[in-house]
């Protein structure tokens, strides 16, 4: 039981560290057991150092830095327990244009082994898609799908 948790924790921590560097273009991050002697009960802390900055409490990071950190963590969970398809609902809301770019390139890579359905308002994320569906309410209160666009992938 404790062995299982320790193994899972180690693997997820590795993924998290790699994904953080990939999404931030540098820096480092890791998960820490608040009390390593109490494997079965201990809380989990997140230590983050964005590229070129000092290690900071998650609370002091910016809105976009926090969102990107948690995206790295959730995808670390996903790498540990894969799912065949995944729905992402506007998780790119807080990211600036450069981070949306990095995130969408990362997603295209990941999409080779996982099917993604991504709700988004962001142009960068839309450009990473293979197919796009529009949802509108021509008649108030009633959703309607509009024509499917096949994305012309530039290369």
């Amino acid at each position, binding site marked *: 039981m404790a062995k299982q948790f320790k193994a899972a924790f180690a693997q997820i921590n590795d993924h998290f560290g790699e994904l953080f560097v990939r999404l931030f273009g540098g820096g480092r991050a890791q998960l820490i057991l*608040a009390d390593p002697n109490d494997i079965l009960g201990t809380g989990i802390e997140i230590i983050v150092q964005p590229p070129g900055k000092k290690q900071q409490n998650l609370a002091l990071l910016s809105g976009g830095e926090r969102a990107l950190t948690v995206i790295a963590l959730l995808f670390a969970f996903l790498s540990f327990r894969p799912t*065949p398809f995944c729905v992402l609902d506007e998780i790119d809301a807080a990211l600036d244009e450069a981070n949306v770019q990095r995130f969408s390139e990362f997603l295209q890579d990941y999409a080779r082994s996982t099917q993604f359905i991504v709700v988004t308002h962001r142009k960068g994320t839309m450009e990473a898609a293979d197919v796009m*569906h529009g949802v509108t309410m021509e008649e108030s209160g*009633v959703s309607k799908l509009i024509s499917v666009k096949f994305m012309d992938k530039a290369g």
Partner: protein
Amino acid sequence: LLLRKLEAYGFKSFAEKTEMEFKSGITAIVGPNGSGKSNISDAVRWVLGEQNIRNLRGNKMEDVIFSGSAKRRPLGVAEVSLVFDNTDGLLPLEFSEVTITRRVFRSGDGEYYINKAPCRLKDIHDLLLEAGLSRESMTVISQNKIDEVLNSKPEERRLLFEEAA
């Protein structure tokens, strides 16, 4: 396992029978505020067996049934189906195409189907568990999930960890 199609009828703002197709890779869903995009993620969660109505932004299960608009009367039943390409046999069934369907009536009664054959909610849960598609998994990730992880204390984060791993 590949998700082929989502069908929704009477689910939240989907007053009309709606069909959405998916390919492998990335499918983007776009549109104005309030048009129904998150209702699609809710539909996926719900048909995968979500039982906690709070995770679907409602108070009681019948909140997912189309409640009417200025011009339309409410509907009496909500139905969502997910159609899978099961050629790789990830779902332990003899079918190369698997459809799971969930319905709920205003009375609160629910119906469940696998390939149009009636079954219990438990059968759907067990089937999806095999494929890594249980409700606890990271199958639907929203901005809420992100805030939840960010604002959680270390002990709460551990629970998320145990859930996801």
